[in-house]
Each structure stands twice: as structure tokens, then as C-alpha cells.
């Protein structure tokens, strides 16, 4: 494999990592900071993508579509937080898993009820379409570079929000002892709704951004959800930095694994068997990565006990 191709694949890995980060960021915010396992996060991603597709189809504007995605997901987030999620904060993880699993069912079939069973259309704006030439002669889609940029900006913003602002401190205090922070005069319920909506909006944004280069369909959130969980667990729950590093690790492992493992096996196997074995191992690779990380650091790379 040529060096240029390898570089390009690394870039692809980084890019897919950043896409995952967009999803994982909201999840780690909700999951780590508020102590809630939200399986329905993938549904919010889907809501964002569908809202974007619907608005893009009606208005033809990608920018409006993004705004719609943010708004719809945040709204859906607020709604479920106030009706369902807020009753779950003091429950154990099990109840949270079941309740949000139920939300997935409702969201998925509800979306199908509204939009039908066929995938929707959402395209990247023409200003961002097509490849650009990078130094070294690498042709790379502009849109993917933009996603990398957006992801990094969001990472920085979130990091500052949680670590440096008073709201961040209150959120973390609330996670440690919700009742106590309320007894000190912080309206934690409102704060949580806000944060949940923010996490949801991020998921919706991710859905819209990623939906433009993937298929916008019912159930699109579930595979990403699992990956996002893998990411935040590798990175250490509640850590924005961890989510970013974890996402990059997963992106790189997945991309490079699927490219390099078949080549590796081709050294001592017949070609089609090597492709098959290599690809099988590649699809397991991120789980192997996660197991490996947790065995050496049981609370993830940047997690606290």
C-alpha cells in the first residue's frame, strides 16, 4: 500500500472518529454528567436527520435544514426529558435502559408512521460538495473536512462548558448529589432539561451532518448509538476529552482495521480467504479494542473511579 494511500486512510479514520464524536459528545454529556443511560440518543440523531431532510426538501436550504435539525432534536429532547427522563435520574441503570429502549421503539415506529418506510433524501450543499486537493496530492472531500472542523470546535466548546463554567460545576455537583445541590438553591431540574436538550441538539446536528452523506432512514441511529457507547466507555465516561480521544481511536481502528487486516492475512493465506477472515476480524476490532482498554484501565482512558 502506498504511503499516500495510508495517509489518506488515516485521514478517513480521523474523520469517521470526529463524526462519532459528534454523537458521543451529547451522549457522554447526558450519560456521564447526569448519570443516565440514554439508549434513545440514537433516536434523537434520527430525528435530526429526518427534520433536516424534510426541511431541505421543502426549502432547498441546507443551512435551514441544520437549524431545523438542531431545533427538532432539542425540542424532542426537552419533551422526553420533561415527560420521561426526569423520573429516571434516581433510578438504577436498569430502569433507564428499559425506559429508553421503549423510547426507541416509539421514536422509530413513530417516525416511520410520519415519513413512511422509505429512506429520505438529504444532500450536502453544492458549496461544500466535491473533493479538494490536499498537500501531498491527496484528493479529499471538502464536506468531510468541514465535519472534522465542526467536530473539533464543538469538542472545545463542550470542554470549556463543563470544566470551566459555573453551569458545568453545578451539573457535575448535581451528578454527585442531586438532592444536595437542590437544597443549596440550584434549580437542578431546569438545568438538567437544558443539558439534555443540548445533548439532544448535538445528536440532531450529528444526524443531519452525517445524514447528508449516508442514508436517512428509520433505525439509522442504533448502530451509531452502540459505537458511541463504545467510544465514551473507551474514553472514560463523562469526559469530553475522553470522548474525543476514544472517538478517534475507534475511527482509526475501524478504518485501518478494515483496510490493513485483509492485507495482513494475505501474507499467509489465499486472497479471498484473507479478505474474508480479515474483514471478519476488522468488524470485531473495535470491540477488541474496547475490551483491551478496559482490561488495563477499568474506568476508561480518562475516567475516574
Amino acid at each position: 500500500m502506498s504511503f499516500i494511500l495510508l495517509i489518506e486512510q488515516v485521514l478517513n479514520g480521523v474523520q469517521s472518529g470526529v463524526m462519532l464524536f459528534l454523537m458521543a459528545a451529547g451522549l457522554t454529556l447526558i450519560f456521564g454528567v447526569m448519570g443516565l443511560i440514554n439508549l434513545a440518543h440514537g433516536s434523537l440523531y434520527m430525528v435530526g436527520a429526518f427534520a433536516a431532510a424534510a426541511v431541505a426538501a421543502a426549502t432547498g436550504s441546507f443551512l435551514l435544514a441544520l437549524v431545523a435539525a438542531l431545533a427538532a432534536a432539542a425540542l424532542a429532547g426537552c419533551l422526553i426529558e420533561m415527560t420521561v427522563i426526569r423520573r429516571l435520574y434516581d433510578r438504577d441503570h436498569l430502569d433507564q435502559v428499559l425506559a429508553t429502549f421503549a423510547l426507541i421503539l416509539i421514536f422509530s415506529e413513530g417516525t416511520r408512521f410520519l415519513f413512511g418506510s422509505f429512506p429520505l433524501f438529504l444532500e450536502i450543499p453544492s458549496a461544500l460538495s466535491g473533493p479538494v486537493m490536499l498537500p501531498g496530492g491527496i484528493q479529499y472531500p471538502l464536506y468531510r473536512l468541514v465535519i472534522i472542523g465542526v467536530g473539533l470546535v464543538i469538542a472545545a466548546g463542550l470542554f470549556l462548558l463543563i470544566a470551566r463554567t459555573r453551569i458545568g460545576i453545578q451539573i457535575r455537583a448535581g451528578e454527585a448529589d442531586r438532592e444536595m445541590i437542590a437544597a443549596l438553591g440550584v434549580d437542578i431540574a431546569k438545568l438538567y432539561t437544558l443539558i439534555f436538550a443540548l445533548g439532544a441538539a448535538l445528536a440532531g446536528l450529528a444526524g443531519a451532518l452525517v445524514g447528508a452523506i449516508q442514508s436517512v432512514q428509520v433505525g439509522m441511529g442504533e448502530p451509531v448509538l452502540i459505537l458511541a457507547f463504545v467510544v465514551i466507555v473507551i474514553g472514560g465516561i463523562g469526559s469530553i476529552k475522553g470522548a474525543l480521544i476514544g472517538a478517534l481511536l475507534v475511527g482509526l481502528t475501524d478504518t485501518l482495521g478494515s483496510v490493513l487486516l485483509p492485507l495482513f492475512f494475505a501474507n499467509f493465506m489465499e486472497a479471498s480467504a484473507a479478505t474474508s477472515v480479515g474483514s471478519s476480524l476488522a468488524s470485531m476490532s473495535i470491540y477488541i479494542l474496547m475490551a483491551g482498554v478496559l482490561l488495563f484501565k477499568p474506568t476508561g482512558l480518562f475516567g475516574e473511579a
Partner: protein
Amino acid sequence: EGGKVKVGMITTLSGGGAGLGIDVRDGFMLATKMAGNENLEVVVEDDQRKPEIAVQLADKMIQSEKVDVLTGIIWSNLAMAVVPAATAQGKFYLSPNAGPSALAGKGCNKLYFNVAWQNDNLHEAAGAYANDAGYKNTFMLAPNYPAGKDALTGYKRTYEGEAAGEVYTDLGQTDYAAQIAQIRASGADSVFFFLPGGMGISFLKQYANSGVDLPVVGPAFSFDQGILQAVGEAALGIKNTSQWNKDLDNEANKEFVAAFQEEYDRLPSLYASQGYDTANLLLSAMGKADVSDADAFQAALKEADFASVRGKFSFGNNQHPIQDYYVREVVKEGDVYTNKLIGPSLTDHADAYAADCKM
């Protein structure tokens, strides 16, 4: 002539892939409605695309509903789970979509008819088209599961050029940047891919945006009416292979396309056409024999004495279709993306497993 027939349709109506099942069902029900045959009764159940559920529904249909004929399954793995058990219990099974090789060769059965294609067929047609188009060095791509492997096998069976690369992706993969980079670097002159459903949409969108502009060919699954709108412009001009298209020039097809649009207010898909044909095949046999006489009913089915929307249609010795395959091109008609017939790819084509069938 012919008594009552009760049909159990097990198909995917909820969750991912529901669109395909809904089309098969709608095509099938359209045909029964048009026939108005009161002897035909249909019960429909949703398999949620889970093999275990499909097996249990089959048990239910057979044990409780006491159906005579089963049909409807979309996916090969579900078919593999249901068909052997159903035929073992003496029920007919008419496949409107899946055609796994195991059921075409050694595992063929008198009670099993495939009304769509054997799984390899559309890929074989794509390989034949690649030869005609003069492709010499194809990069091949499919998901890492049995149907994916069958796809590459099928393509290579007819394709005569070199392989620039063979890659298996994850089932359900959504990002193909890595594979597209491989394609770019491989020196291929063309790309063959089999990525059904959402996987194909993602691939095509990303491919169109990547700056790689090698010609692409694939089976109809990624270009069908149901998902073309979601791919959009990225699909324009791409050649794909199918045994049917809505502009196929025959009476039965015209009637079907018009009636389907009238009834459901959308263009029919490949799957709808297959559901429609399946029902008409069944109706034709009902006119000739009673389902309680299995031998007679089988013979009546095998005659395939119905007006297929594909034009000519007959069964081989393994009760799989012998039919023509066409090349189609994605075009835009007004606001709607759809396929236009370009020309034949394979004619009177049977599948590669028929010889193994001892029936």
C-alpha cells in the same frame, strides 16, 4: 375448478427494510384484488426481519391458520430458516424475493418455487454487462455475509476481466471512505458493488462526492424505486441490472404499472412486481388444480401459465425462473428519479445450480 386456497404471507413490515416487504405485499394484494377470486384468502404477518420470528410465524400459519401456501419472505436468511421446515410439513412455498443457492441446488424441493430470481442472477447479469461495456479491471465490493459472497461469486461467473480488488465491508456499514480510497488507488476501470438498502445509499452519495469517477455497475437492489429518491443525483446515469423495469413493453406490465399507481399513488418497485407475479402465478394454478392434490397443484404451478410483467417467464427443472435480464439506467423524469431500460444483458438465463437439483 379448484377449491379454496389459503395463503400465509410472512414479510417484513416494521423496522429496517420494511419498505421491501410492504411493496411485495402491496403487489401481491393488488393482483388478488384485480383477480377478484373469492377462493383465495390471504393472511399477512410481520416477521420484523428476525429469522426466529419468521420461523414461529410459519409454525403459526401452518398449525393455527392451516394455510396451504406460504410466501412473502424478503431475506435469504429468513427464507433459509422457514422454507425447509414449511416444505417438510407439506406446504407450498412461493418465493417473491429471496433465492438462496442452497434451495436452488441440492436443497431444491417439489413444493418450493422461486418467482423472482436465484440470488446470483442479477450479479451474473451485471458481469455480462461489464463484458459488453468493455470493463477489464473491476473493483468489487459487498458486505461480509453469505449473500455478499454469493454476489461476488455471481459477478465473477460471467465477468471475464481482471479483479482490481475484492473487498468485504461490515454488514450495515455506513461510511465507505476507506473503501473509496482503496478504489481510487487500485487502478480499476470500473466498480461493481452489491450493497442493499441503506448501505447502497450511503455508498453512492459518498462515491459521488469523492472525485472518483469510474463507471459503476450493480444489481437493481440499490437502485430500486423505493430508495432512488433518497440517493438522488448521485445515482444518475448508473447502470444496473434487473429482470424487470416499469417501462418493459408488454401488456401485463402496462396494466400493472397503471393499476399500482392508481391504487397506491406511487410508482411500483421491483419488489412490487415480484409480489404481483407471485400472486398471478398462484391464481393461474388455482384455475387448474386443487391445492389438496399436491402433485397436480405442483404441475399446475410449474407450467407458469400466467402473464408475467416481465414478458416471458418459465421455470427450470429446479423450479427457479428462466428469464431475461436487462440493463437499466437511472434517469430523472420530471422530479422523480427512476430507471430506463437500456437493453438486454442475459437472455433465457437459468441459474448455475439447476444441475445439482435431483428432482
